[in-house]
């Protein structure tokens, strides 16, 4: 089942983009379910065409750049998030043979791209020329840098066990036992760091509607706002896929075809992210920072140390 790379590129692009658009509907319906409501159910069957209606609206809106904004940076910022997230999908092993680029350093590539994604938020906040957006950008910079550190560290346990940075080989190494069992702490840490990297509740401080009036994207409208919006959903799709690949054995699983297993795992984590949004309140910024540096970071280091010691002892 080896397919052509171009087919993989186009397939993954289309699936990722349409999945993230579809996610907007899924999120609204699930949030409604957990709040005892219905959510959008008027446009089309089960409200499925609501996304289409929103897209039409967002495409036809005036694409306005405020006069006090820094125009070139303002335009570049939403593009950065789309590019970095979509680039990360390139190293994602969806199923045997369905991968755009089987890089040897796939995991590092993913970390690099997710660290470049910060620029989108920070620059958007700065270029808007608005104090609330600036605050959102500052928060994003501090938050993403802090959480990136132990996001990388929490993955190193997996790397130690698998002995490679190559994502396909990490998946193949989990044929017997999924890494969620030996690396449970790493799994939890990566989950929390992933939520923070995707700027989802309870870590959505950069946008915080209640305090910062949408933070870094308050000045954005039309398709530029749409890019941030879709970028966020692409981001959580990416994080869910990464969790599935790194900790839940990717496409491994009995009876069903590999692709189905992968999609089931990804979808389960997407639902979990939405459940987190439905249930947890937003943290205060100092709580976020102390959680990151005083709890998560030492735990990630300890996890790495213990895993390293066990791997050494087994040899």
């Amino acid at each position, binding site marked *: 089942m080896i397919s052509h790379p171009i087919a993989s590129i186009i397939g993954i692009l289309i699936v990722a983009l349409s999945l993230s658009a579809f996610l907007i509907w899924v999120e609204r319906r699930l949030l409604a*379910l*957990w*709040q*005892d*409501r*219905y959510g959008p159910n008027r446009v089309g069957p089960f409200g499925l065409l609501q996304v289409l209606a929103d897209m039409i609206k967002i495409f036809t809106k005036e694409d306005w750049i405020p006069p006090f904004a820094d125009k070139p940076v303002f335009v570049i910022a939403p593009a950065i998030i789309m590019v970095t997230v979509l680039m990360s999908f390139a190293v994602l092993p969806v199923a045997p043979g369905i991968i755009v680029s089987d890089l040897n350093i796939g995991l590092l590539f993913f970390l690099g791209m997710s660290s470049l994604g910060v620029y989108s938020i920070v620059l958007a906040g700065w270029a808007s020329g608005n104090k609330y957006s600036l605050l959102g950008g500052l928060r994003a910079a501090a938050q993403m840098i802090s959480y990136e550190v132990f996001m990388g560290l929490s993955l190193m346990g997996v790397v130690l066990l698998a002995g490679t940075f190559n994502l396909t080989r990490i998946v193949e190494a989990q044929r017997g036992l999924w890494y969620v069992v030996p690396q449970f702490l790493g799994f939890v840490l990566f989950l929390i760091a992933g939520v923070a990297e995707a700027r989802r509740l309870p870590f959505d401080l950069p946008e915080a509607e209640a305090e910062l009036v949408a933070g870094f994207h308050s000045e954005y409208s039309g398709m530029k706002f749409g890019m941030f919006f879709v970028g966020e959903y692409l981001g959580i799709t990416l994080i869910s896929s990464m969790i599935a690949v790194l900790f839940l054995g990717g496409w491994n699983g009995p009876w069903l075809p590999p692709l189905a297993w992968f999609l089931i795992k990804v979808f389960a984590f997407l639902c979990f992210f939405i*459940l*987190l949004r*439905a*249930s*947890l309140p937003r943290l205060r910024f100092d709580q976020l920072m102390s959680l990151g540096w005083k709890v998560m970071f030492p735990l990630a280091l300890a996890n790495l140390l213990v895993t390293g010691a066990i791997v050494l002892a087994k040899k």
Partner: protein
Amino acid sequence: MLSVIRTIWNVFLHSFRRRVTIQYPDEKPYLTPRTRGRIILSRDPDGGERCVACHLCSAVCPVDCIALQATEDENGRRYPEFFRINFSRCIFCGLCEDACPTYAIQLTPDFEMSEHNRQNLVYEKQDLLISGPGKYTGYNFWRVSGVQIEGKDKGEAENEAPPTDVYRLTP
């Protein structure tokens, strides 16, 4: 940490709860008869207008949305010459219904009064008057009150003693 997990679990349990939303245009909620909605003017059981144009409703109205002009017919019955309620200002507080001495003005459970043109929300008397007695079926103000009209002299109302002849001095 435990409380966070418990919160997540409790929220997850909501996926099995009944939804509280009522799909409004498709399924209508039950509204009790005393719901305060569109205002009407009711009639006596015998078909006459109940309103005696006392202006109490327009005086008590906090948003001044009621306007009327009193007049009198040839039988001595007072009635409003015009009666106008501007529903674009009305806040459905129900004070007019409380103030009304004759049960003429009443609030109904109907609230679906959307209009494209604001002017269409100004209801005149012919729009407000209904043909029945509304919530108080047996009540007829002119039978109860001691006011003299044609066909009912003084002392002929319900529970009313005949008028005293002030020129008779015998006790």
